[in-house]
């Protein structure tokens, strides 16, 4: 069922998304390659979430082409996403992981061990039997990360992974993201938090009004932004 070709690199070629009369993404061309942790930054409504949904394959572009490892229309068996507001299934924490493992085709015998590993990774073993919807915001976010990792993805998309979390919970999530990236999983995260982009991103993509304004390595982007919008955004001015 699972083939050997990786989903990465993911290539957007002149991708457009129009819904009715509204253009949400306009002529987006970008390659998401192995190695770097890509931080998509930009104000609300700039198209970050839409780009992630297209890259995940949850929506289809109305123009242009997206390929995963050189192929089009690849089902999402090797890529995972954590939504900005993850929905916990109406099961226990362990039940959520068991479900994701089953959906990913993990044989029943191996699941208990994998559930234990995933719970340990996100530090939730003690809460394994707790109903997932009863967990705190930070715990739900960590469980959502573990659930996304159940399918052993090549690439993990994160949509505002720490929005609405307090500093301690944010730190726990950011440490986890570093661990995940260190395992060789390509991480693409959308954030409007410049500090988070600095802390985690090695590759920065600035979006504004559905377009990619600038893409550069993190040091270069923050030290010497090329575009006026990037300079404004880094200076903390409002991009409207």
């Amino acid at each position, binding site marked *: 069922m699972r083939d050997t070709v990786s989903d990465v690199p993911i290539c957007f070629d002149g991708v457009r998304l129009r819904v009715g009369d509204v253009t949400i993404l306009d002529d987006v061309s970008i390659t998401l390659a192995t190695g770097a942790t890509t931080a998509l930054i930009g104000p609300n409504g700039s198209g970050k979430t839409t780009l992630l949904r297209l890259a*995940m394959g949850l929506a289809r572009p109305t123009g242009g082409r997206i390929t995963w490892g050189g192929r089009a229309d690849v*089902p*999402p068996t090797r890529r995972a996403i954590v939504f900005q507001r993850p*929905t916990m299934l109406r099961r226990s924490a362990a039940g959520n992981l068991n479900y994701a493992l089953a*959906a990913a085709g993990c044989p029943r015998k191996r699941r208990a061990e994998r559930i234990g590993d995933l719970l340990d990774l996100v530090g939730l073993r003690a809460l394994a039997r707790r109903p997932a919807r009863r967990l705190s915001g930070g715990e739900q976010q960590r469980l959502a990360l573990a659930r996304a990792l159940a*399918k052993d993805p090549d690439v993990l998309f994160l949509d505002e992974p720490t929005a609405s979390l307090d500093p301690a919970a944010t730190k726990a999530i950011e440490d986890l993201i570093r661990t995940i990236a260190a395992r060789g999983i390509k991480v693409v995260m959308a954030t409007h938090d410049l500090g988070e982009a600095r802390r985690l991103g090695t590759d920065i993509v600035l979006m504004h009004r559905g377009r990619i304004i600038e893409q550069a390595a993190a040091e270069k982007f923050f030290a010497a932004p090329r575009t006026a919008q990037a300079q404004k955004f880094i200076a903390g001015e409002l991009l409207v």
Partner: protein
Amino acid sequence: MPETSVIELILSADPALMRIIKLSLAVSLTAAACAALIGVPLGALLALTRFPGRQVIVVVLNALMGLPPVVAGLAIYLLLSRSGPLGSFGLLFTPQAMIIAQTVLVAPIVAALARQTIEDLWLEYRDELAAMNVGPLRRVATLVRDARLSLVTALLAGFGRAAAEVGAVMIVGGNIDGFTRTMTTAIALETSKGDLPLAMSLGLVLIALVIVINALAWGVRRLDERFAG
């Protein structure tokens, strides 16, 4: 004194009384089970598919939740009567006819509530299940499983309606003593005959039954909250 007679009738487990209660429960429980087999898949289908005319079906289904039992009874009567299209089965004035009529009453309730429940859950789960690459069959199974306690509540509501209705079972069952007489039809008959103690004791049993059903529904909701959050 009617009061003592009422209590005596219930406490002595009067055989005629017991037979009536048993038939009532058997008919309404069977009808609720049939309604579940029809209503849950129908509700899931309407919740998860989009086709022309779906909205109309949803509206009709919601309207059928308030279908007057006498009208349902009349329709089934016409179908099952000697000259009706299903007359050759000879089902009119049998418990089977009563089960059919009550299924017709309860199935729309189960289907409409199941549709609402499953659709709400689907809106919540859609993106996550798509991201997990969950296929259509597993998707339906997941939604029915995760909505199961709400579906049980819908079934209890349906059973309550079946057990309490009088119009449909009266028309298609005929209220035949010892054969198709239920609690509700017996109450109607005994009251008009003036045998108030029997009518009142059946009324008490019926009210107790309704209380039990509602207590069960309440318990299921509490369970739901505890386990599902």
